[in-house]
């Protein structure tokens, strides 16, 4: 997989498949992206597991915080890395030691570590780098269009409502394949 840009089908496939996401580097500070991306995905019915050694043992939005991915006592489908690029390799090694192994390593917007990505891919994991799953969910569901963002998706099909709440859209939207996107487009 090259990581300069991704097909929509690849990103949508991942977000439609994973159920449990461990977010490494969550923050309890409500103005940090590592707090509100967690909250947003939780509200979109992902099972969210917060990871942060400093906050271990506490709860974030009702979810118990673990110090390491290896401490999580349940299977995790995706590890979302909210740490700087230089920490990514160590986190991938820890993720690969999990039993069962997660299927996806996701590195947040601004984070890219090609060595860590290669290691994960050699072990059969899918990798996304320099993206935010909240932004990608918003883009592919079309929610982010309300902010004037170019979703780079087209459709003549009615978008699906999320099913509860106001101004929430579902991810299973049918679109004309929009080509590949770079960065957080």
């Amino acid at each position, binding site marked *: 997989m090259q990581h300069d840009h991704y097909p929509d089908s690849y990103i949508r496939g991942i977000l439609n498949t994973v159920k449990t996401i461990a977010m490494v580097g969550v923050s309890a500070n409500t103005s940090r992206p590592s707090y509100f991306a967690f909250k947003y995905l939780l509200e979109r019915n992902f099972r969210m597991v917060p990871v942060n050694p400093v906050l271990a043992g506490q709860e974030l939005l009702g979810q118990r915080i673990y110090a390491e991915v290896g401490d999580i006592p349940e299977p995790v489908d995706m590890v979302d890395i909210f740490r700087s690029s230089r920490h990514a390799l160590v986190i991938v090694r820890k993720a690969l030691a999990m039993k069962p192994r997660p299927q996806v390593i996701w590195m947040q917007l601004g984070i890219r570590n090609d060595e860590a990505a290669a290691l994960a891919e050699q072990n059969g994991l899918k990798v996304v780098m320099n993206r935010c799953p909240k932004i990608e969910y918003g883009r592919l569901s079309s929610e982010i269009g309300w902010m004037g963002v170019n979703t780079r998706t087209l459709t003549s099909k009615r*978008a699906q409502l999320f099913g509860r709440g106001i101004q929430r859209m579902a991810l299973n939207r049918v679109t004309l394949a*929009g080509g590949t996107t770079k960065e957080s487009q």
Partner: protein
Amino acid sequence: MTDRIPGFATLAIHAGAQPDPTTGARATPIYQTTSFVFEDVDQAASLFGLQTFGNVYTRIGNPTNAVLEERVAALEGGTAGLAVASGHAAQVIVMHCLMRPGDEFVASKKLYGGSINQFNHAFKNFGWNVVWAEPDDIKSFERAVSPKTKAIFVESIANPGGVITDLEAVGRIAKNAGVPFVVDNTLATPYLCKPIDYGADIVVHSLTKFLGGHGNSIGGLIVDGGTFNWSREKRYPMLTEPRPEYHGIVFHETFGNFAFAIACRMLALRDIGAALSPFNAFLILTGIETLPLRIQLHCDNAMAVAQWLKSHDAVAWVSYPGLAGDRYYNLAKKYVPKGAGSVFTFGLKGGYDAGVKLVSNVRLFSHLANIGDTRSLIIHPASTTHRQLTDAQKTEAGAGPDVVRLSIGLEDKDDIIADLQQALAV
């Protein structure tokens, strides 16, 4: 299914729009509402804190306007857009996000007269100091850059017409200076030229002109090219410093390559208040659906009129870059190969008085201060739009006493030419 990128005409009709999720309405509904109910206090807090996507209040965003924003962003190849009340409002909002009092920006001397006024007067009151450069002397942009420079501003095709800016050359100067390159693409529209392909970081539009295209709605739009690295430059605190009005959110870190568009919305439009009416957004969206068809016909008609004028005895000169031999012909071939737009100027041998007489004698052309309408328009800038400029500024802006500006419409070209013929013969 293979991923394919839709073509321009497809984007002009579809980008940003989809059948309404609750009613199935296929055309974009006009969400003529001031406000949007909250799910609960928690969702309200998330919306106000920029932590989730959604609509709150039409001064900040509206679903009809959002379709327009995404539409134009897609046509320009940008990451996001922001629709505002007018092209002038777009310029205020862009500069509000880039400039601090005492800062400078470099702007081409060849601009819409209204922009020259805005930069010389209103912006100076804010302490945003314009330094003028000459588009025919690219080095003059380099010379104008100082440590206080925060942006470089040009028009792709400059109003009142006839000047094609060498975008790539100016874009390189902006890149070397580490400042965003802001291009007003109103006269070209993305059908003729996509400035982001030539180094623009931010594109602004007066939607009032060719994008709306029907002379019925004032509007403006900002497109974020997603190309400028705000965090590297660290000279733009709106993008890289924690914002106290949003509990310390850092825009570039949070919104990545569409951070500038979000800053324009949440830090500038929210506080400046120049919001676009959803009804105007709807009319402009309808106009954009036929953009490729209209602009090509505008250009073809303009070329025919320019050629006809060139051979007329009362005409001293015609400044249309589509004409072979025009000073901007080669730049037009490079930047606007499908046509040089439909706004251009020509000079009357009879000078100021002949200009006044011509605008009085036309019967099909409308004498008014707009461009980019389905209708053919005429104006004598020296006596109207550029009246407030000094004589030297008028000539520098291409609006000397003998100059007449045309905006060629979509009528039959023979009728357009016949009207000029009778008016020049009187």
